[in-house]
């Protein structure tokens, strides 16, 4: 039932749409037809290709009577419907048409009459315009006339002014009202520029002459010192307004000022003798000039400041030169005081230049230089002193003690003098020094430190022994000597021949020792108490020691020749019984002790060198020879003043004389480091030593 109800409704709507479409559009669109139309084309009642006969046939064939009747009823109803639809459409359309016609009628009646109104309006506007034009033209003439008259009036007034200008300027010159004159002239200037060559020629010439006079007068005013500052400054301003090259004037004046500065004599050396008036006057002038200048040329501060600073700098340079010539502190103070006064005065007129800072720097440098040079002079004096001593050193009578005394005196005197000088500087109540007080104290302290360091270096280089001897620093001597051994020691290894003579290093060693001995004797006192005691039993002891030593030597020689294992055993045994030897006892400040220690250290060094080498027989024999030769002179060095015996008997009674002990240790070391330690025969040894002795 549902479907039955819907289909006719749908169909109706569609049909209505199609009808409307066919009415409004000329070509009935195919697409509007539903797709079924193709299939049911002949019997579809709605299609355009509907064939009633065929439709009837099909219908008759398909349906029974009842169905046909029903179809008939349906169709009639449908046709009725369609008819009413069509009627309604037609009616509606007619209605609309009538409405449209009415509207058009009304519009037509409304537009009539409007055009006439418009034309009237246009006419009226045209007449208003023409009237206003006529009024304008009638007034224009009068207006132009008035303007022309006004211009003429102005011009005439100016012409009058220009014609009057020379007179006016003249009046101004008379009354010295230069400011007005300049104002007038600069006012007239444009006109002169435009017409000066034609109508106003005379006038221009006359006023230019007047202005020239004015310029001259003004220049005179600016340059003259008699005029007041105010007027001079005003004159400068006026000149500037007249386009006069003021800068030129300024530089000229500055140059003049600078030139006058060169006259400001500042010769420190002269200063103290001469009365300071000339300098003071010059400075006074300079200060005045600066003051004037500042007023006249307000923008000239920078140049002035530079000028003043240059002056100060120049002065300080002179002071530096002066300081180099070894001046006293009073001189320095005097010079500084003068400068400081100058600076204070200049500062009054030129605060911007920060002259006091500038001069503070300068003073700082100068004082520092003074301190440094004071110390360097001091050092120089002392080194001169020592050099003199050293030069004399070639001569027999040179004495380290004297040199030392002299240099100590020089050091203390010089130091005191410097200190006094510094005190003077510090005690002075000069303001600038006050400001630098802390710095100066620092410098002086620094100076003293440097000085003493220099002094130490000097002392170390010039007279090592004299200073160091006191300080219980002796190892440097073996240091020097051992350097010489070093080279010599290396050569031992290369020896392949039997030794022919005592090696050169022995000579060097002895030579060095002799020099040291000489110096030590001058520095250090003898051990007098011990000496006396040694003297008393000297003779007997010495003989004893000699025999003792010989025995010992024999023993050591025999050691060498013994078998190795036996020798080892012996050394071990010897170690057990030997009291431990304090090799390096504390050095006492006596000649004997110092010399003894030097010899000990040297021999110990030789021993150490020997220990790091390996020798063949020849090398060993060379060492044997050298050491044997050394024994005697070494003993002489130490034996001097009969210390030897004392040493033998009282200090170290149980052992041999230390140098001999060390000599032996060198030999022992050499034996240990030799693969084939066969010593030289005694006669050969003696012969070689004798030959060497004969040489020297």
């Amino acid at each position, binding site marked *: 039932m549902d479907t039955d109800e819907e289909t006719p409704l749908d169909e109706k709507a569609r049909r209505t749409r199609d009808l409307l479409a066919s009415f409004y559009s000329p070509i009935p669109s195919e697409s509007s037809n539903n797709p079924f139309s193709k299939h049911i084309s002949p019997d579809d009642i709605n299609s355009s290709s509907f064939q009633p006969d065929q439709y009837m046939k099909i219908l008759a064939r398909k349906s029974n009577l009842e169905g046909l009747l029903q179809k008939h009823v349906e169709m009639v109803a449908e046709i009725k419907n369609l008819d009413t639809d069509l009627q309604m459409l037609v009616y509606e359309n007619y209605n609309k048409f009538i409405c449209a016609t009415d509207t058009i009628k009304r519009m037509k009646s409304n537009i009539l009459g409007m055009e006439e109104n418009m034309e009237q309006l246009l006419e009226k506007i045209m007449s208003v315009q023409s009237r206003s034009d006529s009024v304008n033209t009638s007034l224009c003439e009068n207006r132009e006339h008035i303007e022309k008259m006004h211009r003429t009036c102005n011009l005439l007034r100016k012409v009058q002014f220009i014609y009057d200008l020379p007179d006016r300027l003249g009046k101004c010159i008379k009354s010295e009202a230069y400011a007005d004159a300049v104002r007038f002239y600069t006012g007239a200037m444009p006109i002169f520029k435009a017409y000066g060559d034609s109508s106003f020629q005379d006038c221009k010439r006359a006023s230019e002459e007047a202005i020239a006079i004015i310029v001259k007068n003004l220049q005179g005013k600016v340059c003259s010192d008699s005029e007041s500052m105010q007027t001079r400054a005003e004159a400068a301003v006026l000149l500037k307004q007249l386009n006069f090259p003021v800068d030129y004037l300024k530089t000229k004046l500055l140059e003049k000022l600078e030139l006058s500065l060169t006259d400001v004599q500042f010769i420190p050396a002269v200063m103290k003798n001469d009365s300071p008036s000339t300098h003071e006057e010059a400075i006074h002038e300079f200060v005045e000039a600066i003051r004037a200048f500042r007023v006249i040329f307000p923008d000239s501060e920078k140049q002035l400041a530079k000028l003043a600073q240059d002056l100060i700098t120049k002065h300080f340079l002179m002071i530096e030169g002066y300081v180099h010539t070894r001046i006293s502190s009073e001189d320095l103070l005097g010079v500084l005081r003068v400068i400081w006064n100058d600076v204070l005065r200049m500062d009054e007129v030129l605060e911007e230049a920060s002259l006091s800072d500038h001069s503070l720097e300068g003073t700082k440098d100068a004082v520092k230089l003074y301190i440094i040079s004071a110390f360097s002079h001091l050092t120089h004096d002392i080194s001169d002193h020592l050099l003199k001593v050293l030069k004399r050193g070639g001569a027999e009578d040179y004495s380290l003690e004297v040199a030392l005394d002299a240099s100590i005196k020089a050091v203390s005197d010089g130091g005191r003098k410097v200190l006094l000088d510094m005190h003077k500087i510090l005690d002075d109540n000069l303001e600038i020094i006050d400001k630098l007080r802390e710095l100066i104290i620092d410098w002086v302290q620094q100076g003293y430190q440097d000085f003493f360091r220099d002094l130490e270096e000097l002392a170390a280089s010039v007279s090592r022994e004299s200073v160091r001897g006191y300080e219980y620093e002796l*190892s440097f001597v073996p240091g020097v000597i051992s350097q010489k051994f070093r080279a010599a020691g290396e050569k031992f290894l290369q020896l392949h021949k039997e030794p022919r003579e005592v090696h050169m290093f022995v000579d060097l060693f002895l030579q060095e020792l002799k020099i040291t001995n000489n110096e030590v004797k001058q520095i250090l006192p003898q051990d007098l108490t011990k000496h006396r005691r040694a003297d008393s039993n000297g003779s007997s002891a010495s003989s004893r020691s000699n025999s003792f030593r010989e025995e010992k030597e024999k023993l050591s020689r025999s050691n060498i020749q013994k078998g190795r294992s036996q020798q080892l055993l012996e050394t071990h045994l010897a*170690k057990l019984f030997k009291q431990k030897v304090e*090799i390096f006892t504390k050095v006492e400040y006596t000649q004997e002790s110092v010399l003894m220690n030097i010899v000990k250290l040297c021999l110990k060094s030789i021993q150490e060198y020997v220990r790091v080498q*390996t020798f063949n027989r020849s090398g060993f024999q060379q060492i044997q020879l050298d050491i044997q030769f050394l024994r005697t002179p070494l003993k002489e060095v130490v034996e001097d003043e009969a210390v030897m015996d004392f040493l033998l008997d009282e200090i170290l009674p149980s052992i041999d004389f230390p140098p001999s002990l060390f000599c032996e240790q060198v030999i022992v070391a050499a034996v240990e*480091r030799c*693969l084939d330690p066969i010593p030289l025969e005694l006669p050969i040894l003696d012969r070689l030593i004798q030959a060497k002795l004969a040489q020297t």
Partner: protein
Amino acid sequence: MQAASSGIGYGLKYQARCISDVKADTDHTSFLAGTLSLKEENEVHLIRLSSSGTELFCEGLFSHPNEIWDLVSCPFDQRIFSTVYSNGETFGAAIWQIPELYGELNSPQLERITSLDTDSCKIKCILWWPSGRHDKLISINEENLYLWNLDVSKKTAQEEFMMIWQSSSTAFPYIQTKPQVQSQDSAGMLHKLSGGAWDPHDVSSVAATCESYLQFWDVRTMKKTISVECSHVCSVDYHPQKQHILVTAEHESGIHIWDLRKPKVPIQELPGHTHWTWTVKCNPEYDGMILSAGTNSTVNLWLASTNHEELTTERQVDSSARWVDPLLNTYSDYEDSIYGLTWSSREPWIFASLSYDGRVVVESVKPFIPQK
């Protein structure tokens, strides 16, 4: 004589120069010492400090073919050590291994793992890689430095180390089948190298002592980097904790402490010994504690400040008031020059010294360790 000192003594049969701490032995405090006898049969002693710390006993005694001028224990294997030796004419160097079963043998022979054969130059010392297991070694002779590549591979069958000098490299560009000359000093005979130390902080840097200079070599580029002037320098040791700090001993002028960032002037000088200062060693643990040994038969214990800033500020303060003697103690229980000196790395308050007459003395510095 024994009673007078706190030290524990031990006697070698012959004269001796070198003693080394056995760093790799972490269970005992042990030292290796080698004798120096031209004519006798030389020995290497393995010395051990008893656990009570009151006695030294001989743990092993091995014969060594030549007199020993330098001996260093391998830092990573307690049975390996290197020696520099001489038969009186020529010098040589070798790596040795203590045999496994030496306790059961009467006179065990050392196993020579390899020789470090170079040219005829007088070899001075061997430097092991500063710490840990590593295959690099340096040997220094009078003219050259050699860098060796040590290939240690354990063979399972024989429990034996194989050492091969290889021409392959991992870390360094120069590893030689035959070692190449690393450095040749142009000055020739005048400047002979005498020893050196490997920087533990920068393993590319080696310091070598050279007569009057301390030279620094970069082992990567094989070039000399800087040279510090100090006369007759004979021993050098790096500060174990602080980089750039090292200590030198000089024959005549004592001990100098340097900061390599300011190599012109030493940061501190210590007076050294009354005769030559032979060797100097920094304590591995305690900062500033330095030992020096000299040919005046003494060992000195110093406490130096290694801090440069501290030093300078101290100097500004009133120096006399605050000055403390850097010399803590002098050990003088010796009868001959002392050439051998070493700290124990296991017990860093203990050191061993060896004097030329063959006497080993072990001392404790405990009383002098500064209280923190």
